[in-house]
């Protein structure tokens, strides 16, 4: 029997970690993800988990230790944010190339500089090309559910890739929300009692050499399978979501459409902003405006075909990016969607809003202005900064 309780995003993720009960956790504190590590450390101290917890001296060492433990065959988790994630960047693609199913709680926070502790997606977006599955959460419930699903997805033999589940710093990580928690046994049965690694560094009778120097003659052949696994993971993500929905009643996909079927004016967003946008969609629908929202839950693998199918009937689309790619062509989500839409013969007008950097609040008037812009889309520039002072 599941139970409904009040939890912040960090508490919800720590609770999922307790139920997952990984073999090894290596983590380092960083605002706003620190609580996850603190709560989990208390679980270790109280004997509520069997985990060997390594309180490392940096995030670089956190990810390095995760790689070591995962190559040894352990089920491994970590948590971080922003600068911490940036310090891991060197090791993230190594974890992916070694096909290690490490699962990370990633609390979205703006990258320095200037130094800032609040939410935007610049940290996670900068890690989009490192071969990690990336799942965004609209609220604590999604973070909890996705973290449990991420273990199954990452460890699936068709995938064998690391995965990060993100929440929006402070907005989700520190806000109390009503969530439904599964029974410990339900979680354990869903993810499987233990990771079934094909090889282990601790198998002394079958010694393996891992992480060899790969030159012009082999490197390429070892990179392409990572791309293939990422492509294949889409099916696995959907299968795992379907099973989760069947067993526990909460449905997930790669995307979530809100009043999208007949929508003419569509906003696309990730994370907690989607909750705010849904309110505006309802308002506009009440006034007879055919507004809709497309929420991207899974950013890696990028659900290009699904996004195209969801947007093809719209008149105008505004992509909301909570980070800037500095390309002068807009944020990462916008440029990827524009690229995916290229083959369509008849496509909606598309504009991009970069908003909420460094935790700048995204409120109802700002989102209303996005839909107003969509209704006069021909007069809009390709990229606009939303909510910034002149």
């Amino acid at each position, binding site marked *: 029997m599941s139970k409904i309780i009040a939890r912040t995003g960090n508490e919800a993720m720590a609770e999922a970690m307790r139920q997952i009960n990984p073999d090894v956790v290596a983590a380092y504190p960083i605002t706003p993800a620190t609580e996850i590590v603190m709560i989990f450390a208390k679980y270790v101290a109280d004997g509520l988990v069997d985990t060997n917890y390594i309180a490392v001296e940096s995030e670089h060492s956190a990810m390095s230790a995760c790689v*070591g433990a995962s190559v040894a065959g*352990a089920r491994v988790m970590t948590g971080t944010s922003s600068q911490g994630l940036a310090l891991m960047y060197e090791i993230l693609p190594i974890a992916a190339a070694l096909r290690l199913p490490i699962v990370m709680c990633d609390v979205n926070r703006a990258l320095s500089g200037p130094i800032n502790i609040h939410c935007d997606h610049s940290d996670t977006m900068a890690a989009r090309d490192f071969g990690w599955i990336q799942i965004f959460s609209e609220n604590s419930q999604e973070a909890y559910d996705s973290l449990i699903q991420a273990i199954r997805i990452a460890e699936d033999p068709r995938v064998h890739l690391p995965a990060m589940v993100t929440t929006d710093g402070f907005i989700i990580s520190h806000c109390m929300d009503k969530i439904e928690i599964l029974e410990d046994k339900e979680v354990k049965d869903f993810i499987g009692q233990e990771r079934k690694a094909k090889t282990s560094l601790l198998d002394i009778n079958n010694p393996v050499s891992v992480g060899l120097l790969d030159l012009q003659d082999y490197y390429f052949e070892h990179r392409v399978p990572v791309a293939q696994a990422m492509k294949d993971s889409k099916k696995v993500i959907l299968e795992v979501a379907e099973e989760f929905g069947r067993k526990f009643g909460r449905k997930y996909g790669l995307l979530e459409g809100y009043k999208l079927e007949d929508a003419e004016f569509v906003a696309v967003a990730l994370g907690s902003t989607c909750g705010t946008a849904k309110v505006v969609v309802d308002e506009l629908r009440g006034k007879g405006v055919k507004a809709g929202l497309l929420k991207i839950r899974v950013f890696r693998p990028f659900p290009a075909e699904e996004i195209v199918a969801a947007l093809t009937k719209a008149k105008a689309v505004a992509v909301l990016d909570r980070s800037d790619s500095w390309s002068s062509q807009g944020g990462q989500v916008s440029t990827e969607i524009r690229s995916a839409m290229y083959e369509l013969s008849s496509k909606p007008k598309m504009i991009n809003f970069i908003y909420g950097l460094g935790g700048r609040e995204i409120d109802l008037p700002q989102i209303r202005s996005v839909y107003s812009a969509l209704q006069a889309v021909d007069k809009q520039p390709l990229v606009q900064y939303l909510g910034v002072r002149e």
Partner: protein
Amino acid sequence: MCPGCGAPIIARQILLASKDPVVVVCATGCLEVSTTIFPYTAWTVPYLHNAFENAGATLSGVEAAYQNFKKKGKIGQHINFVAFGGDGGTYDIGLQSLSGAMERGHDLLYVCYNNEAYMNTGVQRSSATPKGANTTTEPAGKIQQGKVEWRKDLTEIMAAHNIPYVAQAIVGNWADLTRKAEKAYALRGPKFMNVLQPCRLGWGYKPEDTLELARLAFDTCFWPVYEVENGVYKVNKPKVKKPVVEYLKTQDRFRHLFKPGNEKLLEDIQAEVDRRWSQLLAKEALAKGGEVK
């Protein structure tokens, strides 16, 4: 590896000393690139390379997984966990990762094969490079005589972690080297060994002189051979302490120091070697309860 390289001798002797199975993590460097070019591997024991600066942290993770599996009864056999890193990957870029691993008390042995510069990438200076040595990033020139700074004393930094075992050794004394490795394996907790490894390429000498050069480093006290077991110092003393120039003159990297005008520099190097040597002897005397003079 290059003819006359000391690194494989160190790896082989350290691993031969283990009676139990070993698992190895290697930092990026000479030993790593020359033993594991895909699809080949020279390693017959489990081996993992992650990156340059994180051998300490990577092996921490492997050891934590082992402790977890042992706790759950999934694994029974004792395994010795060994990391190999060059001086660049240990003294410089990997120092934080190493210090963290030592402080956290993982049951592992970290071995620095110390050839006193970044040899794999073409003899760039490291904080292990001795004063006066010619390197490609702090070369001997018209107004500068090689490395300006004194080298970092990493072994003492490791000793300051108050871990069960810290040792300095040389590649030329195999009995001492393997005895130290055996001692390290017998102790539970973090262990660190710093092994001087002459590098023919970066030091400039004949390949057949590798072991002789290491012994000369010991005989001149340029590289003291000693151990710190649970805080107690034990120093190997040369029969006759030779002048440092006997060692310096054997290598191309110090050749410029013998040009007229550099006499003072040679005196300074001798004085610093003497100072560090007497400091070490004082630490040994202190451990024995003797008087510090």
